[in-house]
């Protein structure tokens, strides 16, 4: 115990590590805020030049970037309706209307505060319950991942705008597009029409930049010349009463984030979307109706994606299995530094665990300070005339897309999606469901087939699994509940209508 404390204190006693964490958070916030430059990319670029450093410094910087980057993605979602990363899609739905009302400062302030809180929930879960959660996450079978994806698809009801038919249509197009390319298990070509560029499939990040970034910019041009709403920046930090009011929701959503983050292969994006949906269904008296600027709709996804940070480290540090894309990169970095990421990590290098816990804690404090300090400059962005800011967004979208894999073809894809998105919006289709379909399509596809293979391709044993396995049963019942809870009968009974 005393030794663990010593390990925990390492970053506190080193000026260099301290500084690197703060630099990492700062860089993460700004890079994460740029459409197209996601936290995953920031981490992978940074890691390549930390190879020659000593391990402690490299980890300090990476932890900082991770925490800052996840947060940064939400800022542009609130200010410009352009999420910097998939984890911020839900935040934009409520955040942008708030910014339009002149409450951007208050929204970002709340977002920062609950983010820091959730980040600590994740760190706490990591430090006290890592082995338990890791073993639990292993129990999730392909069937359960399939059910999680189905649950995600139901989100279309939440983020699809008013018209369910239009939401489902956009979502179905997204799923269809995600099938383009080589079949992941047999290698058969699907919807490629013999075109080589279609073989590798359509990256959802490219699609997201187009559908959110460029299409939003194009839509905004229609508003060029209009005056931007004046921002009220008097009270940025939420009061204790406000914080306490959202505390139960914050705790619930951050724990959800921890669990989803700890599942191998799912990260903050799925966590944030599920948490938003969960809030929308369960919060009885939101500050405003959902979709028009409900603060609950910011708290839930923001706490979930921050909780997922600590969560993602759980399987990585205990089992050597990455919890999400960023931890996968960190595993690679540990190898370079001569460590054995995997089940031996905790046994052979126990200091690493507590040092990461400590770096993440410092990063969360840094996020609080740097986040709140940048609220004012950030909120000013929104007051910049649209005819200036939107071309900048388009340029950044092009750079961001190109930077993913230095592919010019991706830029064409991105612009194509931007134009499709523009017309979708024009005719009242939300773009969110399409991105959702692109993200969840492969997860549905691969896990359905794995679950089927596990049941030896027999339909009855396959269906039986949904009822006999406790996790599957719980998820199945949750989905049934999600559907029932949408019926007017249930809503009247609960007093939601």
């Amino acid at each position, binding site marked *: 115990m005393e030794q663990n404390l010593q390990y925990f204190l390492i970053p506190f006693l080193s000026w260099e590590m301290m500084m690197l964490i703060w630099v990492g958070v700062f860089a993460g916030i700004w890079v994460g805020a740029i459409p197209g430059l996601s936290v995953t990319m920031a981490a992978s670029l940074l890691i*390549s030049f930390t190879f020659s450093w000593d391990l402690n410094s490299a980890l300090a910087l990476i932890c900082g970037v991770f925490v800052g980057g996840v947060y940064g993605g939400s800022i542009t979602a609130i200010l410009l309706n352009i999420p910097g990363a998939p984890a911020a899609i839900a935040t934009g739905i409520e955040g942008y209307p708030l910014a339009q009302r002149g409450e951007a400062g208050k929204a970002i302030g709340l977002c920062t505060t609950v983010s820091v809180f959730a980040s600590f929930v994740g760190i706490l879960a990591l430090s006290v319950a890592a082995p338990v959660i890791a073993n639990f996450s292993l129990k999730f079978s392909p069937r359960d991942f399939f059910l999680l994806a189905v649950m995600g698809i139901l989100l279309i009801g939440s983020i699809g705008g008013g018209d369910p038919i239009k939401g489902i249509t956009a979502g179905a197009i997204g799923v269809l597009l995600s099938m383009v390319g080589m079949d992941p298990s047999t*290698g058969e070509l699907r919807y490629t029409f013999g075109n*080589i560029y279609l073989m590798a499939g359509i990256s959802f990040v490219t699609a997201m930049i187009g559908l959110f970034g460029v299409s939003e910019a194009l839509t905004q041009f229609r508003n060029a010349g209009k005056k931007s709403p004046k921002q009220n920046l008097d009270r940025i930090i939420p009061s204790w009463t406000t914080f306490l009011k959202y505390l139960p929701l914050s705790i619930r959503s951050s724990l959800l984030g921890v669990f989803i983050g700890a599942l191998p292969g799912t990260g903050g994006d799925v966590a944030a979307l599920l948490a938003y949906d969960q809030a929308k269904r369960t919060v009885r008296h939101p500050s405003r109706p959902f979709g028009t600027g409900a603060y609950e709709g910011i708290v839930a996804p923001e706490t979930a994606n921050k909780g997922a940070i600590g969560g993602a480290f759980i399987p990585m540090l205990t089992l050597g*299995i990455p919890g999400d894309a960023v931890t996968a990169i960190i595993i*690679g970095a540990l*190898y370079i530094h*001569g460590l054995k990421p995997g*089940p031996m990590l905790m046994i052979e290098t126990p200091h690493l665990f507590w040092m990461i816990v400590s770096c993440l804690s410092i990063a969360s404090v840094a996020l609080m300070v740097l986040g709140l300090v940048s609220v004012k400059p950030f909120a000013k962005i929104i007051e910049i005339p649209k005819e200036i800011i939107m071309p900048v967004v388009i340029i950044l979208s092009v750079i961001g897309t190109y930077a993913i894999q230095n592919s010019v073809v991706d830029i064409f894809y991105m612009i194509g999606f931007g134009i499709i998105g523009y017309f979708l919006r024009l005719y009242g289709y939300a773009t969110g469901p399409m991105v959702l379909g692109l993200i969840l399509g492969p997860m549905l596809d691969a896990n359905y*087939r794995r679950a089927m293979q*596990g049941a030896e391709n027999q339909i009855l044993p396959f269906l039986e699994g949904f009822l006999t396995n406790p996790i599957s049963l719980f998820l199945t019942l949750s989905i049934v509940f999600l559907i029932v809870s949408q019926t007017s009968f249930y809503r009247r009974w609960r007093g939601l209508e």
Partner: protein
Amino acid sequence: MRKLGVALLMAGVLAGAAFGAYPEKNIQGYIMWGAGGAMDNVSRAIVPIAQEHLGKTIILQNRTGATGAIATTFVANQPADGYSILFGAENPNLYKVTGLSQIDYDQFEPVFLMMANVGVVIVSKDSPYASYRELIEAAASGKTITMGSTGPGGLPYVATTMIEKIHGVKFNKMQFDGEGPCITALMGGHIDAVAVGLLAAANFIHSGSVKGLAMISSERIESVASVPAVTEAYEEYRPYLPWGAFFGAFVRKETPAEVLDVLRSAFAKAFQDPRFDEFAKTMGGVKLGITGEDAKKYIKQNQSVAAWLLYDAGGAKFSPADFGIERPQAK
């Protein structure tokens, strides 16, 4: 005439810039398997050292899917200028016979083969099977055994086919995106056993998270000496051995020789670097370190064993003979 001279001069300058100073911009590296797997780990270990000798960054990304055919096809369609490197394993050797793709290593020039990998059959630590013999006998008795796999052509697929053929058994198979996810599923109890490369499994065997039942080789491997060689239980494996995977870096065949030399020398230097030695030891793999004609011969040998094995087992759509792949000679 003067215009032509200027044009020629400019063309000369451009050509000089293109070939003289390779690499003059960052290089893209495409890893055909997912993060955390052996291919990924080997690539991410050698690249940072190799790029010190290149003076430019090799930006790595995982382009997974279809047992690596997506990355292979992708790089084969990039310009042959040395700015797109394929980090590939043995999988493309089977693309033609499985009908997966017409593009395999015939279209590539090996830059360097870094490591070799040996298959190991593992079960979870709570598994009822304490030995390889018990597992095989359970399968032979008609019990359903679900094995993890990574799609036609991957090491798990070929190894499983080999086992099925030798013992006349049939496994139920579940497909994952890589060896890492296979091990995760094994630890969670979603599959009964899986044959993966030792590089991905070594740390899990050392920690006791999984049990190693048999190495698919004719002798024990030093780094996991507690795991018996498969021939200790069944002599029938001997004609197929040695067989395994390899991890290398490749560029398109038409890549200029000067560019290839620069890359080869950078990778060779990185390979000899003590840091890579340390990595190889940590991972528990077998260092290979061959290039040029040797590497091509090695790849051809591997292809001949795996392709004919798969074909004889009925796992191939086309005969290796159709593509001029020779049957392995009995030793």
